[in-house]
């Protein structure tokens, strides 16, 4: 009994000592970063949420956070009121954003992976090729939008020149910046800019796959496709899953390419060229409806948080490489 009592007493004393041995040093090291996160992220988010519940427009802007409180009215207006100026065209932009994000992500990941596989072997000038292939990614998105805006011009643009005059793939020069082709006019430059960085990430991941696995597979008679499906893809799965998620987030929030390609922020790219972020910028900032703009931003943020949560839950095991 006494022995047991001593034992219990000792265990309790150890727990107490462990508690007392709390080391504050790591927390001190983390504190500046945590403080910065609060200042640059949390404070604006809380302020933005407050703004989404205010009647904040050009007539109340000078009152800023003291503008009249309207509760959830801004949310109701932008989501359900067909006559609300911020709501106008939102369904079309939502459709375009979903298709755009899907298409850009699939194409960029496929091209990035394909080129990474091609580069994952030794050949003369490999380093130079890898550097040159990165060029589209180092071009800022607003420059990409401006440049492709010129390239898509029907008569003077290089795209139609190549398609029609050089390759003779079409018998007439189509419009890319007017009509339904505007959708492809924004998808293609986004893919063009996005795939190189994916290629680099996939290439780094490929170089970490043990060569012994391939050698063993070859000895077992596996062909290239079987090696890709059974070794490469499973090995890259954690990276692919994360990169697909990042791509979707990036593309849902895409703004610069559309804004710069279609009049540098003027007007409206049209039924097939509008995305959610350009719509939000145009119809909240240009219309001076800041409270409603904040409400749409929060809806978008909530949707994206839900998407990330579902994605992480679905692919958690893949991402931690436990599969």
């Amino acid at each position: 009994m006494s022995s047991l009592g001593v034992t219990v007493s000792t265990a309790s004393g150890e727990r107490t000592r462990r508690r007392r041995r709390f080391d504050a040093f790591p927390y001190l090291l983390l504190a500046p970063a945590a403080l910065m996160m609060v200042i640059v992220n949390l404070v604006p988010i809380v302020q933005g949420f407050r703004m989404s519940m205010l009647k904040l427009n050009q007539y109340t802007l000078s009152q800023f956070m003291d503008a009249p409180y309207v509760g959830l009215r801004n949310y109701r207006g932008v989501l359900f009121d067909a006559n609300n100026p911020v709501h106008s065209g939102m369904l079309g932009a939502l459709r375009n954003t979903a298709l755009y994000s899907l298409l850009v992500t699939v194409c960029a990941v496929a091209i990035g992976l394909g080129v990474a596989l091609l580069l994952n072997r030794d050949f003369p000038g490999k380093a130079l090729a890898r550097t040159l292939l990165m060029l589209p990614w180092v071009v800022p998105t607003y420059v990409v939008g401006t440049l492709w805006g010129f390239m898509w011009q029907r008569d003077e643009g290089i795209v139609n020149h190549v398609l029609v005059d050089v390759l003779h793939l079409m018998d007439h020069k189509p419009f890319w910046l007017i009509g339904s082709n505007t959708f492809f006019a924004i998808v293609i430059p986004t893919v063009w800019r996005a795939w190189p960085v994916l290629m680099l990430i996939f290439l780094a991941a490929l170089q970490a796959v043990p060569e012994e696995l391939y050698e063993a597979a070859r000895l077992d008679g596996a062909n290239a496709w079987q090696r890709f499906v059974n070794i490469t893809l499973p090995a890259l799965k954690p990276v692919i899953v994360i990169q697909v998620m990042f791509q979707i987030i990036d593309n849902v929030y895409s703004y610069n390419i559309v804004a710069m390609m279609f009049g540098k922020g003027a007007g409206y790219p049209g039924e097939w060229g509008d995305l959610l972020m350009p719509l939000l910028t145009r119809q909240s900032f240009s219309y001076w409806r800041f409270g409603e703009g904040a409400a749409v931003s929060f809806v978008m943020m909530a949707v994206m948080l839900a998407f990330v949560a579902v994605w992480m839950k679905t692919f958690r095991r893949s991402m931690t490489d436990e599969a």
Partner: protein
Amino acid sequence: MWVMPVTTNAQHDVPALLAPWLAQHPGVTVRVTVLDWESGWNKITAAAASRRGPDLLELGTTWMPAIAAMGGLEKLSAAQLAEVGNGAPYYPELWKTTQVFGQPGVYGLPWYADVRAAFYRTDVFRQAGVDPKQAFADWDSFHAALKKINGTTVAGKRIAALAYAGKNDWNVVHNLAPWIWNAGGDVLTADAKHSALSSPQALRAIDFYSSLAVEGLVPSNALEKDSDILEGAWVGGDYGVIFSGPWLMRRIFESPAGSVVRANFDVAPYPAGPHGHATFFGGSNLAIFKGSRHKAEAWDLVKYLGGKAPQVQLALVSSMMPARIDAANDPAWTSRHPVYAKLTAIAADGRAYPPIPAWGPLESVYTKHLGQLAELSSGIADKYSLPAVKALIADTVVEADKVLEEAN
């Protein structure tokens, strides 16, 4: 002092403009900050909301009522107004833009003007056998002239009749407004509470203007370009006519000395519609910032820059027209090139938008929707029809009225 890039080197030219005034005010230093038109609006509204900003600033004529309504600008006193002749030296339409529609008070002085006119190729008209005076007389003669000059070949180059921008441009509303006014319509109702774009007169103007593209008198590839590209193409000799402003003169003079356009161009007023030949009148004003701690000095400088000599001097370095009538008629401006005198004459029919605080949001609504006329008239899907235009304008009016509702 905040200014817009009124000249190609405003950081140098504006201080040079201030030099005589500074010589008379040795104790004053003026720090000139050049904003750009894209980000300037955000910076100015942020300053107006926070009450922290410059002592004086340049504001686009359509921006001024919004910033004044936000309480960001100092209202001029009766004594100050008396010092500038209660606005009499300035073009009345521009003087109107220093005020807020339906409210008493003046918030600044007009600084320079943007006046639009038809710039045309005299050699193309000559070759096609078209008399320019007759061509710009009215809509019918203008239409007939465009048909005649369209496709004319000059020095081996096939010339398209007219260029105007489609949806990818900031000037959509400015381009269309004179046609609407000249048809007897307006962009707003008389009380400025509702959009007036669905009036039969406005619809007639919109239909006439868009039909020029449908008929191929405006090449469809122009509709995907912005004004800047089209002006460059006009200077390069691609088009017979373009509606533009005095800044185009600078571009013409900067083109190579042997350029065909440089030796063969002239300007004309807008073709008269059933209700006259008004043109778009815009530009910039100068105002004192509400939060300024040097209001007396700021007013003295605004008054100086609003004077005749500095306005002429600015016009000569910027190619923008003076906002004062006497400065716009000064020989230093009018004798520079015959076109400048013509622009001064055209300015007599200049018309500005009603100075409502909600103009900014309203113009965004108009730009968004009216730009879609390019989708209809480009000929892609043979979609153009008057009912289609009416439906587009009906959507525009609903959204515009909703934006205006906040202001009423």
